């Protein structure tokens, strides 16, 4: 429905569940104005109920024939968890420090629970943002047609002028990644950080990721790593493709988990703890082929041969991981005579020149690829 489509790939083999993305997103967008309970980006433990609780059973999406399915709206207390705080004021009266409301669930309630039996228990993390689907369930469900997909990049947005807070979009999204803002009585959702993207910066969740598990780029950019992971090597798969919305966030499925132990606590060779059925449920039948490709390429690399796929997954450089505007920034840099990774200066200057940020002169800033020479010794003049 859009001319181009921005997409994100996340490598689940590298996600450590540190929630840096969650906090980056929260700080940027959802710590205020009725959005406090929302996590546009969350990281959840699988197998698990996730956030909101049991979202995979909450309906929405499309059936086999392409018709929108009914769904439910998760409850603030039972499924999302209230954005709680402590009774700090009462401490002065000798009270215990307690939450102001009773808690039933939260964005990380079943952290690390997973499945299996000790010592063969297992779990892995899935970070989730809005999938910016090609056939969005939220968009289809809105009787007001208040949700739209941007022509230029396929980002799915809510027109807050038109939204009347009916919440059918929440029932319609099978990922439950659109939220009701009770303060303004309108729906809100992950905006793929479009104000950043328009300036050539990846979404905050991707930029801040300490494990460097996220790639961002246009799906039709054949030089881009997103394209290569999704289309060329087919190792990045959409989550729950059976929901029928054609998601544009793709996951490299978990290839590694510790082997099982036998009764004598000896590892069983070639055993996997994560059941393939669960991976199939999440990523469809294609997961077998994707894991096979990953395994083969890894072996190839282990033999000392070249593997473009492994090089991509190592995530050497943000420059290659985030390609938002094809070569726009490289071209701009060339005009200014900047070479190599120096083009990143332009992006960082823009980044640092936010409305409320002082302009920072980036003199000797380079990326991690090259460590700086020590600054020249200057005469120490005091101050």
């Amino acid at each position, binding site marked *: 429905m859009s001319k181009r489509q921005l997409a994100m790939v996340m490598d689940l083999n590298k996600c450590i569940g540190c929630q840096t993305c969650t906090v980056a997103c929260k700080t940027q967008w959802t*710590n205020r104005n009725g959005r406090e309970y929302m996590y546009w980006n969350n990281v959840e433990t699988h197998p698990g109920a996730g956030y909101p609780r049991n979202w995979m059973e909450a309906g929405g999406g499309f059936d086999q024939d392409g018709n929108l399915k009914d769904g439910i709206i998760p409850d603030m207390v039972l499924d999302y968890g209230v954005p709680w705080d*402590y009774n700090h004021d009462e401490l002065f009266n000798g009270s215990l420090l307690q939450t102001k409301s009773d808690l039933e669930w*939260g964005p990380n309630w079943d952290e690390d629970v997973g499945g299996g039996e000790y010592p063969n228990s297992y779990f892995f993390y899935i970070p989730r943002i809005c999938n910016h689907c090609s056939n969005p369930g939220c968009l289809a469900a809105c009787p007001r047609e208040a949700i739209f997909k941007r022509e230029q990049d396929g980002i799915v947005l809510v027109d807050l002028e038109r939204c009347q807070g009916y919440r059918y979009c929440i029932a319609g999204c099978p990922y439950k990644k659109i939220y009701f803002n009770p303060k303004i009585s309108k729906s809100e959702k992950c905006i793929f950080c479009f104000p950043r993207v328009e300036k050539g910066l990846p979404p905050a969740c991707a930029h801040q990721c300490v494990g460097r598990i996220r790639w961002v780029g246009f799906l039709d950019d054949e030089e881009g790593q997103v394209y290569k992971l999704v289309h060329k090597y087919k190792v990045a798969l959409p989550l729950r493709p059976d929901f029928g919305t054609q998601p544009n966030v793709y996951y490299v499925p978990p290839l590694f988990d510790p082997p099982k132990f036998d009764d004598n606590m000896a590892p069983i060779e070639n055993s996997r703890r994560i059941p393939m059925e669960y991976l199939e449920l999440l990523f469809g039948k294609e997961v077998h082929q994707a894991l096979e490709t990953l395994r083969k390429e890894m072996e190839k690399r282990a033999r000392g041969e070249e593997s473009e796929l492994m090089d991509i997954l190592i995530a050497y450089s943000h420059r290659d991981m985030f390609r938002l505007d094809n070569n726009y920034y490289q071209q701009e840099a060339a005009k200014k005579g900047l070479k190599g990774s120096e083009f990143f200066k332009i992006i960082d200057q823009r980044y640092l020149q936010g409305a409320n940020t002082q302009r920072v002169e980036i003199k000797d800033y380079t990326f991690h690829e090259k460590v700086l020479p020590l600054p020249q010794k200057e005469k120490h003049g005091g101050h």
Partner: protein
Amino acid sequence: MEDFDKLYEEDTFKEVMGMSKEQYKKKVEEMLAKSEGDKGIGHGKSYWKDVQTFLLFADARFRRNKGSTYKKAFLEKAKFIAYVDFRMSDFANYADILLPAKSHYEVWDLRTNPGYHRFANLAHPPTNLKPVGEAKSEWEICTMIVEKIQEIAMKKYKETGDKKYIKIPDPELSKTGYRDLDTLVDEYTINGQLRDDRDAVEIALENTDQFKPNTIESMFKRGGYLTLNEKAGKSSPLYPDKPYNAFENNLFLYERFETLSGRITYYVDDDLWIQEGANVPTAKEPIRPRKFPFVLMTPHARWSIHSTYKTSTLLLRLQRGKPYVMINPEIAKKKGIKDGDEIRVYNTLGEFYAMAKIYPSCPKDAILLEHGWEPFFYKGRKGHNEVVASPLNLLELSDGWGHLKFGGNWDGNQHAYETSVDIEKV
């Protein structure tokens, strides 16, 4: 010691430690007695025996120090407590005076950890930030306290002419044997140069060789950090084009390690260590009582730094809001416990209450509880330290041998997996 007696079984203890409980206690007393009056330098340990007035900074002490009797003993001994923190910690409730501090992100500071990397970051208050209430930086608070002490001392001295008000004897820790309260402010602030947090950063930049050449302005210009110069490499040279790797000096350039042998040392021939069977690293059975089925393990909390930031709105919603204990599903089923139930954790020493979290990765003979929960999170203010006795590890008491030197921060370590408990649904 009472707790110790209550918790441990004589036979288990003897089997593991090679000595009876009585012998152990005697040994500890003997070692501590050695330290009397030796300023903590020779054998044995000095400890804060006679201190009655406390000025404590950000120390959620009753979470940190184990054993519930510690709390009782501390509060009996402390005649006056002033407490400085940016948050109401559990301990703040016991203070006579609370001094509100600015938090880490409201003050000027230099952050670095040479040994891991070669950068120092400049922390500074955001432009136009208004302090919360009367909050001040810790530097300012200390300057004000020092000024007040001098003022009171001088007033007394002028009224009485008695020098005892300005010359306070301190034979142990002062070079001159006295604390001079008439020049206290000048001494503390280096003649007025060092009065607040920003002064501290400037002085550090001017006087620390490893930071040179830098000023606040130059760091600002660069985006808020500086690169440590070549003098900062303590155990490795600093190269302009390579990351910092610890111990290159010793491993590749063949400098001596700071051990007796000059090498990485696994063997310790201290008498006590030999006696304890620890002269080479040796795994030993834990001393915990066998009559309770579950080891209590308290791994590092994920969403706080110990107790700090447990209540940060950004992080708090990533946990469950109150202490929760992770239990193996099979055990939970046997005990009729469901996820979210309140459970009682107990042994002969005491008990505490927490929420159950059913957790397949928990062994069947242990329960897991993230540390960092302060007593005020628990029912009846009874925290997880209620069920531990925390006997000192005897090895901690050996000192003055080779590289076994312990500095002022000595905080005697205890035994690993030292306690066991049982659980029940409330």
